[in-house]
């Protein structure tokens, strides 16, 4: 059975989201909370399958919960549900390990469709996020050597998909262009998100090492 964590501070929106989730996952158990602290303690005590997390909360950001889930329950799919549609908010969330993001003002129908797609392993990817990801990995290549970075660099195919997304092609269109199934293209996008998270964590670890947080050998 699905156990879904719902973190949202505005009661009306929370109620609306809950109804929406119920529509997609009819039998799911939904645990609601409105503060980052509550979400963090819930993550410590219970197992979840999906987490819908708001970014701007009174006591912090949903990104903290993504990080905690990444560490304690890595199998959980964290999805950002936000009013912010800008890269400055979305990119750090994706780096922290979010599986995807939903914009709150979208129509119910579209949100339901996106949530369904996500549950089937097809995360959304906008052109501006794709450009950011390309730039991020391009910058990673130029950085000093790291044994971890080889593992998390993008393949040619992944880069190709990103470039086409950046040009405004939809995932189904790219599937047709590359002669690949919708499912395969979705796998590429998932892989890209995963690498984004691994790479940023490797980067954080390197940075921590550089600052001597792990002591010197």
């Amino acid at each position, binding site marked *: 059975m699905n156990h879904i964590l719902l973190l949202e501070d*505005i009661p009306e929106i929370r109620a609306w989201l809950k109804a929406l989730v119920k529509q997609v996952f009819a039998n799911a158990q939904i645990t609601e909370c409105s503060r980052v602290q509550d979400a963090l303690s819930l993550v410590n005590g219970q197992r979840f399958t999906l987490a819908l997390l708001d970014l701007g909360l009174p006591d912090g950001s949903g990104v903290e919960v993504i990080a905690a889930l990444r560490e304690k329950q890595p199998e959980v799919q964290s999805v950002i549900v936000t009013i912010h549609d800008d890269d400055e908010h979305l990119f750090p969330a994706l780096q922290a390990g979010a599986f995807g993001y939903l914009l709150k003002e979208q129509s119910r129908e*579209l949100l339901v469709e996106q949530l369904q797609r996500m549950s089937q392993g097809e995360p959304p990817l906008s*052109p501006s996020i794709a450009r950011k990801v390309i730039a991020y990995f391009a910058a990673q290549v130029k950085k000093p050597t790291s044994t971890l970075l080889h593992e998390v660099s993008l393949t040619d195919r992944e880069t190709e998909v990103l470039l086409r997304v950046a040009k405004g092609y*939809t995932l189904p269109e790219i599937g047709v262009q590359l002669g690949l199934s919708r499912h395969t293209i979705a796998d590429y996008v998932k892989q890209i998100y995963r690498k984004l998270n691994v790479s940023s964590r490797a980067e954080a670890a390197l940075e921590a090492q550089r600052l001597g947080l792990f002591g010197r050998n």
Partner: protein
Amino acid sequence: MTFPIAHRATPAWRPPLFLLTALATLWPVAAHAQTQAGMYWAVTLNGWLAAMLALMATIVGLLSSLHHRERPANFLVGMMLSWVVLRATAAPGASGLRPLLMTLLVLCGVQFLLRQMNWKRSWIDHALLIQCLVVPASLLLTGGQIGMLGAVWHAVLSLELIAAMGWALWLRHQRLQATPDDAHAREFRLMAVLLLPTMAALLAEMLLAAINESLWRTASPWLGLMLPLLMLALGLQLVNHVAHARVEAEKRSAALEQRMAERIAEVERSHSQLAEQKLEQVTERERKRIAADLHDDLGAKLLTIVHTSESDRISTLAREALEEMRLSVRGLTGKPVHLIDALGDWRAEVVSRLGQANILAEWKSPAEDIEHTFQARSYVQTTRILRESVSNIIKHSGATNATISAAFQDGDFVLTIQDNGQGIPTELDGRLDRGHGMASMKSRAKQMHGQCLVESGPGWGTVIRLTIPL
């Protein structure tokens, strides 16, 4: 040179140098006839030179007292004054002073020539001072019988001067070898022209005095002119040097002022740059704060309306208001947007929106790489126009196909949005556009100094042509 010691030395003491008598016999006999007139001119010239040297000594003395770097010139002053006084003591009564004056002259000459080149040796200083005592004292001890001792001292003093001149030239030559530059080369040439004839004159006088007294008597007043001429030239050179140094100093100070002004301008520039940067940072922070506030408060409320309103119309309005809010916040400041990125954003949005509405979308944009950028404001306005057009197609047109093409024509960006719907009814066009937003699209285009043309007719669809100068 009229070294009176030699003058008084009897010819008997002079060792005959037969080898050089040949040179003496070459002196034209005619010269003897003119001796009296020549002597007169030589003496007159000597007088003039003495007067000029006295004046020059005063000038050089003043200069050296004002310029610390010209200290060695004091020795030149000493040399000049010694010579002038030596001239004045030609009268027999004062002859007792002459040996002292001559040694002083040599002391000053040697020290000036060597110190000019920064060549100092304490043994030379001491030896020259001792010489000043020894020479007059030894001559006094002879009690008037100066004779051979006088000739010896005369020769020694002359050789000292010649050696100092030679050494000064040699040192200059060495310096030129070490650092070959134009100024050093010029100075070396000038000093060679001045010193070599003087050295030759001093040597010639010594030799003539040794081999041919009558010839020596004729030539001596002329040869003796060389040393005062040299001193005059050295004095002039010094004055010239000081004048040049002053010009240089003025140039340097002008350059310094220029550099200072440049530095000040640079500091001012970087300061204003810093202030600008700070202002930008503050603006950016403020923009982010306003954006966050708007999202958290206004945005949350609009969102609540979007998702709780019973009326579709109200929730649509609230959603559009939310979009507008976002565009406005982003448009406040903002970096230029690359057109290629903008086209990507627009394509993704337009194609997926039309796709959801089951309208077949065709997007045409230039295949080649696009280098142009858009002002953030233009990007926002164009996005609004495009969004409005697509909303019209979805809501009102009943179209099944839409073609959106982006192109560059004569420095303009041209966006054409065409559908195969029912078109805009004529009675609504212009007057009452009933939510079609044509008027706002046109005014937005105008804000970008562009234009938005709408062609429509019942049954043959609508074409919106947006032209924006880049």
